[in-house]
């Protein structure tokens, strides 16, 4: 890309390109420019063919300029494929829209002959009139009727100037509202687009993990319990229960078998299917995200619903007031004054903008909230329940100890364990696989299909002999593998404080693997902050043993914890808390947390969690930093306060305007100006940051 530096200060450069940037390429160019790690912000001025970039460090200047020079048609074509502009709401043109609106208004006011201005006003009024007639046809007395009546009264009074002014303010308010909503949705969409996804590609009978965006049409992938479906495709082999709630809203999983289609954005709840790729992520990911973002507006908070209902309910009273004023004063100016002011616009506008501002700020700060009601519940919650592994502790635990029994060497134990575990997306499974690859252990697939028993472990067979790997509860109690007292003592001595995986071959214990999952940095501070922000109970639940649970809980500063919990136990525990009258936030990451996540008042899934956890959760963290939860609580409480504050301001200020208008202290025009001006101002202030 050829460019010329137009303006420069350290940390920011504005360049001029060879020509204007077509409207349809703005998003692609923006994404291509942001492909350089040093650049953190880009502003494009498409009409004049210019762009400004902000970069973090002055030493990166040369790198930034090199990157701009490297952007060519090929890079643009690749970026275009990733961001389907047709679906992404446009946002960069707010200033132009406002400039058109203001410029047009004053051009007409100053230069258009009065008669043509009147004709234009009547022509423009038809839009308000149709909206009002549509409402009346339903029949509804709502804001469009109020707006059309207020403008209509001005027209009846032969005062087209005031009518034009009122419509100008209403258009201005609408433009601003559309922009704020589109901007928030755009931020949400792009923050979600950057979340990486991987897939298990099957090539020549071997599986390998590849980034989902590298998949091509015709590839064969395998999907198992807990995995996301990253593409659209057709099942070639196997049976699975697929949760399609994100696309269809249907909460129950549907069975998918040979010949059936599966769609991106859904997740496998249980089973295993081999899927032939039909449409790749470039075509499907944005659709899945846009669907989610659109659905989020349906999940409105109780408080927002109540405000909107109140806003609609007030409108008929506006008309009643206008009628009473008309009868009492017989003065059409005062009737107009009481129609000019309504509470509804401001209540709805500040409500929805406050929520969208909270959602987009959340997306920027590292979490995705699926609907505004979840903010309300987070703000009201008094209990927060954490899963341990991958939530409080690192998502990448490590195998630090391997023991072999009954003549099995540690190498053999690790090799077989890795061979079984590599098929499942769980942090502990990844730890075993990584340990084997670090030890340079190669293995051939000699086992039969692997059966995944949620929260317990894996079972399979090698040469007709049953092998199981998993928790002590699974291997010893469910599978009845005998562990001699001296072996148990040895394990306890050597694995103190570690999580232990047991490996049994043909009914005999042959190995044990000690997994260390260190506490996440900042976990203790985050727990303390959450307590300071009003969580009375901070609880940790884990399927792990008591010693490992105690070690992590102590390090995180948590006094209430439960060990050896099965998924149904976690679910029952959350339900018991709710029966006791507590409002519960559950934070988890695995398939085994899914029931508890959906049972809690608010379920929060960690970034590295399985797709099914992210599917059932109400809020998804896009990074694994626990401080995100602290920020989430602060934003939720901030949103509550903003709702209350704006409610009081709107009711107080507009009541004052009504009173002054009816008393004849201010004219309907002034009243309209102040009312619409204050609505726009309140809407603008509602976009300010919460933290």
């Amino acid at each position, binding site marked *: 890309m050829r460019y010329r530096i*137009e*303006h420069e*200060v*350290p*940390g*920011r450069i*504005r360049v001029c390109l060879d020509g204007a940037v077509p409207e349809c390429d703005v998003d692609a160019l923006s994404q291509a420019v942001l492909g350089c790690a040093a650049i953190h912000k880009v*502003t494009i*001025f*498409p*009409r*004049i063919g*210019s762009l*400004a970039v902000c970069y973090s460090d002055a030493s990166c200047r040369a790198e930034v300029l090199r990157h701009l020079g490297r952007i060519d048609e090929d890079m643009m074509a690749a970026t275009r494929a990733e961001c389907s502009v047709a679906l992404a709401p446009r946002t960069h043109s707010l*200033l*132009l829209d406002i*400039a*058109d609106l203001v*410029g047009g208004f004053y051009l007409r006011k100053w230069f258009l002959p009065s*008669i043509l201005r009147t004709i234009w006003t009547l022509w423009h009024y038809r839009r308000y009139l149709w909206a009002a007639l549509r409402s009346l046809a339903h029949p509804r007395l709502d804001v469009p009727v109020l707006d059309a009546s207020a403008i209509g009264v001005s027209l009846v009074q032969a005062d087209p100037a005031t009518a034009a002014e009122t419509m100008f303010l209403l258009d201005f308010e609408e433009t601003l509202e559309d922009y704020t909503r589109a901007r928030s949705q755009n931020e949400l969409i792009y923050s979600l687009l950057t979340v990486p996804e991987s897939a298990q590609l099957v090539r020549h009978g071997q599986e390998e993990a590849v980034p989902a965006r590298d998949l091509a049409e015709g590839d064969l992938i395998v999907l198992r319990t807990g995995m996301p479906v990253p593409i659209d495709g057709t099942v070639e082999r196997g049976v699975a229960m697929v949760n399609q709630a994100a696309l269809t809203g249907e909460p129950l999983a549907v069975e998918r078998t040979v010949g059936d289609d599966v769609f991106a954005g859904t997740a496998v709840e249980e089973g295993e299917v081999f899927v032939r790729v039909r449409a790749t992520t470039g075509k499907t990911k944005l659709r899945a995200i846009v669907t989610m973002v659109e659905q989020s507006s349906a999940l409105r908070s109780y408080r927002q619903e109540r405000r909107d209902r109140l806003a609609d309910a007030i409108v008929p009273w506006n008309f009643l007031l206008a009628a009473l004023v008309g009868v009492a004063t017989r003065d059409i100016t005062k009737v107009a004054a009481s129609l000019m002011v309504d509470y509804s616009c401001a209540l709805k506008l500040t409500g929805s903008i406050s929520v969208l501002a909270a959602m987009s700020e959340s997306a920027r700060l590292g979490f995705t909230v699926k609907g505004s009601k979840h903010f309300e519940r987070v703000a009201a919650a008094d209990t927060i329940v954490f899963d341990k592994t991958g939530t409080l502790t690192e998502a990448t635990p490590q195998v630090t100890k391997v023991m072999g029994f009954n003549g099995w060497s540690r190498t053999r134990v690790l090799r077989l364990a890795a061979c079984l575990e590599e098929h499942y997306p769980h942090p502990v499974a990844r730890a075993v696989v990584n340990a084997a690859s670090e030890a340079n252990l190669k293995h051939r697939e000699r086992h039969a299909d692997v059966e995944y028993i949620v929260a317990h472990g894996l079972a399979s067979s090698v040469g007709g002999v049953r092998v199981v790997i998993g928790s002590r509860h699974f291997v010893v109690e469910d599978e009845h593998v005998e562990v001699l007292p001296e072996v148990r003592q040895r394990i306890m001595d050597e694995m103190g404080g570690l999580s232990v995986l047991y490996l049994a071959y043909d009914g005999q214990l042959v190995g044990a693997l000690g997994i260390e999952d260190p506490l996440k940095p900042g976990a203790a501070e985050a727990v303390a902050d959450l307590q300071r922000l009003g969580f009375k109970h901070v609880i940790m639940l884990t399927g792990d043993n008591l010693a490992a649970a105690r070690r992590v809980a102590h390090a995180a500063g948590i006094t209430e914890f439960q060990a050896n919990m099965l998924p149904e136990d976690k679910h029952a525990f959350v339900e018991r808390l709710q029966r006791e009258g507590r409002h519960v936030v559950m934070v988890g990451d695995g398939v085994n947390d899914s029931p508890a996540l959906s049972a809690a008042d608010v379920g929060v899934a960690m970034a590295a969690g399985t797709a099914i956890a992210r599917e059932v959760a109400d809020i998804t963290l896009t990074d694994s930093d626990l401080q995100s939860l602290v920020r989430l609580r602060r934003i939720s409480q901030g949103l509550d306060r903003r709702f209350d504050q704006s409610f009081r301001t709107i009711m107080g200020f507009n009541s004052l305007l009504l009173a002054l208008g009816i008393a004849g202290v201010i004219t309907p025009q002034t009243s309209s100006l102040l009312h619409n001006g204050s609505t726009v101002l309140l809407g603008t202030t509602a976009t300010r940051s919460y933290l």
Partner: protein
Amino acid sequence: MIKNRIIIAAGSFLLGTVAPAILTSEPVHKACVATVAAGMRANARYENVVEEARAQVGDIVAEATFVNTADAE
């Protein structure tokens, strides 16, 4: 006042009657196209000016921020 309104109404009636015939005539059609094209060019120039102003404001704010930061240091 009433006289004015009568004139406006009569004028509107006359305009409504003869306007279609005038608009379909070739020279008027050409003039309309030229006027609309000029309007569109003016609008495009106006939008360019707005965007140029937006870019300049961005430059000024960035420079002012840099000056303040440099002074503070």
